[in-house]
């Protein structure tokens, strides 16, 4: 009985929270980022590029520390271009380079992480001096930044997400072709290099957006979990895309609400929900195969 009373009290609390601006902002931005990352996550996973998401998120972390030290009014102004450039370079080298793709990603990602932390430590910045661990922790795990969004951040996220989603819909068939069989797509006259470039840029944008939500260490979860979960159950490209979008949005929204209610860190809560979802889909896939 106490349990039930507790839960109903929790729901009342949730209803109350959902009236507040900061919760609504977090939900709007969270859902949009979840949607974008899941759409392109499928392509990344299938192209064997999922690790690039991880590498780029560390680059974004490094860029963000520099932006903080330079005291830019909006971190994204530096983080976004730097991450985009790295994305382009990484996807370029992925095909033919002296240093192989996975090694160069590991190098850049670890390098950015190290330099970022170093800069945070040695920079004579008054605010981050006092709470260095807290700052690093919040950039890496996005502890509360999603709950402290300003209207400008929300509009920027909404705008960028809208662009990403429209591009995805317009290029859907070409993305499928270039992901399924790049050689055939190129033989059909498709500029595969251009589409790989577009993918790289969009992924960079998504990662910079997602830093607000789950922090730079956990971004890969947003990219990988929805795609892999959907692929456990569904067999066609379109159904996998739709399912992973729904999965991602549902898990993220649930994660944000749980974290608001119980005061858990947003990013890790979302990832935890993703893991539970993945387990459920894996089970569903196994059952479906048996039947």
């Amino acid at each position: 009985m106490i349990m039930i009373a507790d839960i109903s009290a929790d729901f009342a609390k949730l209803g109350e929270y959902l009236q507040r601006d900061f919760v609504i902002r977090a939900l709007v931005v969270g859902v949009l980022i979840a949607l974008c990352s899941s759409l392109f996550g499928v392509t990344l996973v299938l192209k064997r590029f999922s690790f690039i998401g991880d590498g780029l998120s560390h680059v974004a972390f490094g860029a963000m520390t520099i932006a903080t030290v330079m005291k830019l009014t909006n971190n994204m102004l530096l983080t976004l271009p730097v991450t985009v450039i790295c994305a382009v370079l990484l996807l370029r080298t992925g095909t033919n380079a002296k240093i192989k793709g996975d090694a160069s990603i590991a190098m850049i990602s670890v390098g950015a992480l190290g330099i970022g932390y170093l800069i945070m430590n040695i920079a004579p910045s008054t605010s981050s001096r006092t709470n260095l661990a807290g700052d690093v922790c919040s950039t890496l795990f996005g502890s509360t930044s999603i709950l402290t969004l300003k209207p400008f951040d929300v509009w920027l996220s909404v705008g960028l997400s809208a662009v990403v989603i429209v591009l995805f819909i317009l290029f859907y068939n070409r993305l499928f072709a270039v992901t399924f069989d790049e050689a055939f797509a190129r033989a059909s006259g498709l500029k595969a290099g251009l589409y790989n470039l577009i993918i790289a840029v969009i992924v960079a944008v998504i990662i910079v957006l997602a830093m607000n939500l789950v922090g730079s260490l956990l971004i890969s979860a947003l990219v990988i979990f929805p795609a892999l979960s959907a692929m456990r159950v569904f067999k066609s490209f379109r159904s996998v895309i739709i399912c992973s979008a729904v999965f991602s949005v549902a898990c993220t929204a649930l994660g944000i609400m749980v974290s608001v209610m119980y005061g858990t860190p947003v990013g890790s809560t979302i990832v935890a929900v993703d893991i539970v979802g993945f387990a459920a889909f894996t089970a569903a896939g196994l059952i479906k195969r048996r039947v």
Partner: protein
Amino acid sequence: MAQLTVKDLTLGYEGKAIISGLDFSVDAGDYLCIVGENGSGKSTLMRTLLRLQSPISGTIETGDGLRRDEIGYLPQQSAVQRDFPASVREVVLSGCLSRIGGRPWYGKAEKAIAVESMEKMDITHLAKRCYRELSGGQQQRVLLARALCATRKMLLLDEPVAGLDPRVTAEMYSLIKRLNREDGITIIMITHDVAAGLDNANKILHVGAELFFGTKEEYLASPVSRGFSATEGGEA
């Protein structure tokens, strides 16, 4: 005029020539087999014909109403495809990519072509199945249907029977032969399987240390073929 004319072609990677001084031409309705040892540059030649890489020197010209993007392509299967979630219909439809120009979506015309190609390959009943769950022979039919969406004029086939069992191999060859004889589609096929390949072809291109291009009869009478068949026979 020939559909495809290759003049004094030198090809390879990073300026290193694998094949040089290659001349041959393909007429409408031809069935050309490209044979040669591993590493002799067969696949490089195919990639060059498809504009996936540029030749070091020489020219490739299309004529007789054939555009460069009207060449259908059956690639060797890559690792990516093996666990790719895609329905047969989606894969076949992606062959229409060169037909939609700047439009984002496939229209009625493209969908009709996809349906027709699937009927031709006898895979209509598989349309909703997942590509990765099909057998090797069925997968090849799907990819062939995709290639047919891209062209009704010329098909380039890269080792179309690699990894298939003998019965399915025979089926595949007769399918390709039918496309050539009944639909008048020009076939260019790379193959290791010299004997079976030679059964259907009317022209042979042998690449390697020695180049040969001519009709099947000329090839069988030439010293190039004897040396090659002997070594191939030794391996088997």
